[in-house]
């Protein structure tokens, strides 16, 4: 933390030193762009999760090559999670691993408006 503190001080000093226009206004657009990109990365990109990226596909091909030690021994590695899944049970049921506790009133309240007995949005009618 020491380095960054020093940097910050330098920044503050340079702010004071600049004459005329306020220095913090400079590069605002760039800062906003960076913040936006950071936010984009933080939000889970489901499409990427499903389809992956081209780079990832290349990596997996390289992994297939087996390493040889001294031209005689093969390095045997335990199967990766992906390979284990390849021979798992073929079943369409979606069993949630993080099941909610439906004994809690709080959980019951979280789905109240899914029912006709819940509150209705304006403009909608229980016709």
């Amino acid at each position, binding site marked *: 933390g020491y380095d960054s503190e020093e940097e910050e001080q330098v920044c503050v000093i340079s702010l004071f030193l600049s004459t005329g226009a306020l220095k913090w206004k400079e590069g605002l657009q760039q800062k906003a762009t960076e913040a936006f990109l950071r936010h984009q990365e933080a*939000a*889970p990109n*489901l*499409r990427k*999760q*499903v*389809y992956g990226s081209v780079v990832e596909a290349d990596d997996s091909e390289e992994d297939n090559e087996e390493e040889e030690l001294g031209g005689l021994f093969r390095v045997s590695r335990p*199967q990766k999670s992906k*390979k284990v*899944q*390849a*021979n*798992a*049970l*073929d*079943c*369409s*049921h*979606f069993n*949630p691993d993080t*099941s*909610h506790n*439906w004994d809690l009133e709080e*959980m*019951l*309240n*979280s*789905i*109240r*408006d*899914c*029912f*006709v*007995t*819940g*509150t*209705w949005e304006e403009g909608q009618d229980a016709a």
Partner: protein
Amino acid sequence: MASHGLSYEGCNFLRQRLVLSTLSGKRVKIKSIRSKDDEPGLRDFEASFIRLLDKVTNGSRIEINQTGTVLVYQPGLLYGGTVEHDCNPQRSIGYYLEALLMLGPFMKTPLKATLRGVTNDPTDPTVDLLKSAALPVMKNFGIDGEGFDLKVLKRGMAPGGGGEVVFTCPVRRTIRPVQLTEPGKIKRIRGVAYSVRVSPQMANRIVESARSILNKFLPDIYIYTDHMKGANSGKSPGFGLTLVAETLSGSFLSAEMSSTPQGQGDPILPEDLGRNCAKLLLEEIYRGGCVDSSNQSLALLLMTLGQQDVSKVLLGPLSPYTIEFLRHIRDFFQLMFKIEIQKPLEDERKGGDKVLMTCVGVGYSNINKTVK
């Protein structure tokens, strides 16, 4: 691409690979099927599934190596017609039926499939669930009419089986694009509590305990009790419950639970089964969407094969099975969906995040269907 086909590894997702291969006409090769296992190769139930696929198609070529670790499938034409099949009891009829639901509308002649085996087990979607949740999904896409039905003639619990169902499906030349973006509010809950070779009182006990939870939300709940006797009750005892929540806009969300098969693990009390199943339905409602979690891939397939127009469907969180299905759709049909997450508003009490799936159909037309 079409000449040397697609290649995969492992026995997982076997059904979706073979179904998509049949629909796209692309050859598929599956290697390393349980190759590291003590008993390598295809299991009996998988062989049984492949035989069923062979029955509904014409001219399919299937090659399996000696150990059963490599399968090559060259799809033929979907023929349909009247088919009878004894489904291997290692898996329930739902396992086989899920594939037939996807293939049914694209046959040359309307399908009438009589399937025998295990109708209800805890692993796969039961025939009752498919009847009450999968068929309504297909109706949204214009697959309906008198000839569209799933009848449970005999009930057969795991592990013995001895059940029988008849699935009839009309053929369609094209599939209608859909806009299912508004799930609507749940107006009623229906269900079936079934029991065979145990006291008929079991079903009543299940209904009682499930209602005790669901009545906190809705008065309109009706759970039928279905107790089959004699020749219609299969070979093994058991009971279970299927629940379906129906919304004002015609969406169906389902949940189910079956008793532990005889001789496999701890038995479950009907009261616990009823309560747990009701909670599973609440979980499904929390996930939400216009199509429930077990039918996501069916809806996505029909969107893919729709006419060349935009289809939109709102789903709950994607299941791992569905995610893999999307990857397979990309492989076989070169189609990628637009996937958008919809977060609930601050003061909304409608469960968790939803996923909006959008695509333009590939304009699949059923060339197998005879023109009259």
